[in-house]
């Protein structure tokens, strides 16, 4: 198979785009595609300060590299979750994120959960029994809180996460199977800023996970290849595997699924009725001031103040 642009031997075949590309043209193509995705939904501009959430994995490091290559003003935040699971998971991923930043002279803020809140994620999970020994729900809550807080306190205009198309398609599948309309409504590449809530964006919303991995490999980015030990057997991974089996038979099905959702959303297919809007209440946490859908303390402040959730 040869590169569609230069006839050199291709490094990757993108079935969903009916296109094969050599290393150089693939790297250039993904940069352009990301720039187009940013512009299409007006995610951010060159003049704005962006904070990218970095896990040490292929997606977040590739996204950070691409935004940097495109000339955006982008710093990183790494949250040390204190997950060891006998493989030093957090230690390894933190080191890779730090090395990435240092090699490119980029600014990386590290938040150590245990140092900041006296317990790491497995300890919080064990104490609260939230998630029945699986820390994913505690982990998601803590990460969302810290990312939002850090972005607001340090004056970033926008928080970027590396959710890719496979993430979005798998989440959309799960939310559709459950008909979780409130979640479906919010599964957009941009969630606008509100008081207490920084603008959140997903510039990789149309980037296949395979493309992000190929970008990391072809550009020599070292990332943590080990899976988070707690993600084994997760429903999201199960849905991703099923979607990939369908994609092999029906190329571009994941892209069509998510882009179809975005079009439906633009056509207000999921819009709230006036009556529903009146039933939505938002509060500000009495302790930290962040937005919450419950009175008094938000879930994070409840978690860290010793409450069982």
């Amino acid at each position, binding site marked *: 198979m040869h590169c569609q642009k230069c006839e050199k031997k291709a490094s990757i075949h993108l*079935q969903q785009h009916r296109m094969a590309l050599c290393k150089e043209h693939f790297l250039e193509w993904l940069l352009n595609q990301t720039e187009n995705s940013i512009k299409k939904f007006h995610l951010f501009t060159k003049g704005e300060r962006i904070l990218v959430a970095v896990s040490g994995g292929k997606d977040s490091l590739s996204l950070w590299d691409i935004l940097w290559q495109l000339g955006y003003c982008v710093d990183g935040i790494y949250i040390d979750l204190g997950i060891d699971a006998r493989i030093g998971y957090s230690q390894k991923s933190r080191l890779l994120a730090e090395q990435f930043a240092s090699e490119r002279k980029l600014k990386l803020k590290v938040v150590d959960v245990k140092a900041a809140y006296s317990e790491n994620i497995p300890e919080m999970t064990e104490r609260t029994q939230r998630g029945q020994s699986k820390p994913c729900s505690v982990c998601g809550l803590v990460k969302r809180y810290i990312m939002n807080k850090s972005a607001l306190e340090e004056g970033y205009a926008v928080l970027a996460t590396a959710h890719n198309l496979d993430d979005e398609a798998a989440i959309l599948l799960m939310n559709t199977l459950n008909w979780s309309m409130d979640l479906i409504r919010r599964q957009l590449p941009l969630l606008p800023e509100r008081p207490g809530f920084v603008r959140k964006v997903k510039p990789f919303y149309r980037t296949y996970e395979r493309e992000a991995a190929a970008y990391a490999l072809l550009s020599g980015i070292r990332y943590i290849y080990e899976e988070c030990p707690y993600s084994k057997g*997760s429903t999201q991974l199960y849905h991703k595997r099923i979607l990939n089996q369908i994609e092999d038979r029906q190329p571009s099905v994941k892209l069509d699924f998510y882009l179809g959702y975005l079009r439906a959303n633009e056509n207000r297919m999921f819009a709230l009725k006036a009556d529903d809007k009146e039933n939505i209440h938002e509060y500000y946490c009495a302790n930290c001031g962040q937005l919450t859908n419950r009175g008094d303390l938000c879930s994070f402040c409840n978690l860290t103040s010793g409450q069982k959730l």
Partner: protein
Amino acid sequence: MTIKIKIRDREYQIEGEVQLTKALKHLNIPNQSVLAIRNGILLTEDEPLHSEDQIELIEVISGG
């Protein structure tokens, strides 16, 4: 005279010459879920695999 295909800590062996796409199908691994590397070079799925090739499959899906 076998092709060795490694994915994480698992290793498979396939006899004879075969295209990468057929090897993946044989192992029931969706092409979308992996990237294949031979001698440090990324392979497209039409690539013929030869006896004594050592292929590493990099899993690309992650998340919790």
